[in-house]
């Protein structure tokens, strides 16, 4: 079964649904670990740094956004770690996923910005194309 699961989230509703599915899969297997990653691009860095008073505050405000998700993982007794990666979302997820070997990548099908998707294509689509491990796209 799937014992190391990579869950890529962006805070959207679809990524919450992806979380639910990842939890279901992880519950099937003892010792399963979910690695939750959220990618921040440089525009987000710019905004976050300007609005945070120092590094500790920055870390805190970022984690706060995913507090309910962490509570949900904890309430289901899931072993997990939450990581923030930096860069363009698609390539960064691919690079991280291919660097470590995961049994499965779980990702939401549509992110926050539909206008961007129209022009640039969706992040999940890019990820599916070049990631080596099996991918579960949740809609």
């Amino acid at each position, binding site marked *: 079964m799937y014992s190391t699961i990579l869950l890529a989230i962006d805070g959207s509703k679809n990524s919450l649904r992806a979380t639910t599915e990842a939890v279901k899969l992880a519950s099937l297997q003892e010792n399963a670990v979910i690695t939750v990653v959220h990618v*921040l691009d*440089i*525009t987000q*860095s*710019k*905004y*976050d*740094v*300007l*609005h*945070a*008073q*120092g590094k500790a505050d*920055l870390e805190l405000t970022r984690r706060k956004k995913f507090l309910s998700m962490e509570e949900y993982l904890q309430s289901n007794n899931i072993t997990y770690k939450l990581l923030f*990666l*930096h*860069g363009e979302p698609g390539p960064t997820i691919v690079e991280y996923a291919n660097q470590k070997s995961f049994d499965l990548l779980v990702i939401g099908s549509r992110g926050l910005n539909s206008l961007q998707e129209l*022009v*640039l294509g969706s992040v999940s689509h890019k990820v599916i194309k070049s990631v080596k491990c099996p991918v579960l796209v949740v809609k």
Partner: protein
Amino acid sequence: MIEKIKKEWFSNIRGDILSGMVVALALIPEAIAFSIIAGVDPMIGLYASFTMAVVISFTGGRPGMISAATGAMALLMGPLVRDYGLEYLFAATILTGIIQILFGVLKIAKLMKFIPRAVMIGFVNALAILIFMAQVPHLINVTNITYLFVIITLLIVYILPRFLKVIPAPLIAIIILTAVAIVGNVNVSTVGDLGKITQSLPSFFIPNVPFSFETLAIIFPYALALSIVGLLESLLTASIIDDATDTDSNKNREARGQGIANIVTGFFGGMAGCAMIGQSVINVKSGGRGRLSTFVAGVFLMFLIMVLGSLVVQIPMPVLVGIMIMVCIGTFDWSSFKYLVTAPKGDAIVMLVTVIIVVATDNLSIGVIAGVILSAVLFAAKISHVKMHKQETSQGYNYAVEGQLFFASVDSFVQAFDTTIKNKQISINFTNSHVWDDSAVGAIDKIALKLKENQNTVTITGLDSASKKIVDKLAVFPKQNAKLSDH
């Protein structure tokens, strides 16, 4: 040591060279436009961008960050150039470097992290507004063709990057519209109308100013303002790059490095510069990480000017105006409108006051200093006051204390109590408070003893562990027969 040099310079050669070239292309229009804001020849900004980038690639504390001639600095030096001339600008640039080295040595750069975020948000917004206002004269009483050029520029810089990412869109706008203007013989003002481009490397000279106290008195206020604003923008930029690349940087070294870069720039006939958020973001996005990227940006910029200088003078001014409008939109923190509503009132006021003072004085440093002072005053006012919530119960009164209890706030604590009541049960709750010092404990003692004298019973609840420690150690009221005079 060698290991470190290798890592900072040569660990990302391909990415650094490519991104450095992209940055150089993006720097040219901005360096020219910022020169025009400062009221100097385009060469002054171009030379500054060359020397700043090259020197700071060695001396800076944040590999991958781009420093050059900037809008924030250009806005400050306008009056100096207008009233005293170019030589005084070079002298002020050198003095700026000296002050910044002092800031670095005295580790003042590190203190900048204590500048409240409300002031920083105000700073970037004011910067955007000032750059925009500097464009307004180019947009009033001009021909329709000028407006058309501005609009086409804006369309290119906003739409093109969606399809073509490799070449900076502003440069494409420049190439297309300059070609249109030349081929179509269009009547628009050009960079050449505002200054000359010399196709030569900058050379070393000592600014031609009298070495007197009078000169110092003229340039010092400018140099100080430039030092503060330069470091502020650079440290903000460094923090953004730190975060985006998940690495750390040496802020004091950056301050010293920028000082050295400004001294060199002044001696080579450039205007004072600092790090640029926009260009550094472009660099990181294009794959630049190491010092090599900054170095390549400077060198390639100079190379382009040497080769293409004669074309640069033909760039239509409205294209640069369009690019500057794009820079404003990118600089302005658009979430500020939400911030004004959601942030604590004090923070929102500090942000607004910072912006208003900058716009009113045309000086970023005055706005920042005013913002810092105002937030310090608001902080002191807020913290030197505790809120008291009084509640009547069947046997007496409950008091809930909210805020920090220490020597400055004990008055508002003491005044809240009615000490004339008799035979009641009084409870004082500290759940939302913290007891800091012996003045605070003294105030609690004073109130508790006075109430006890009138046959009331007094209970203290909700102290956190640190507060409890100090109260247990210093307070006398819990003891039997304790009197006020014991304290």
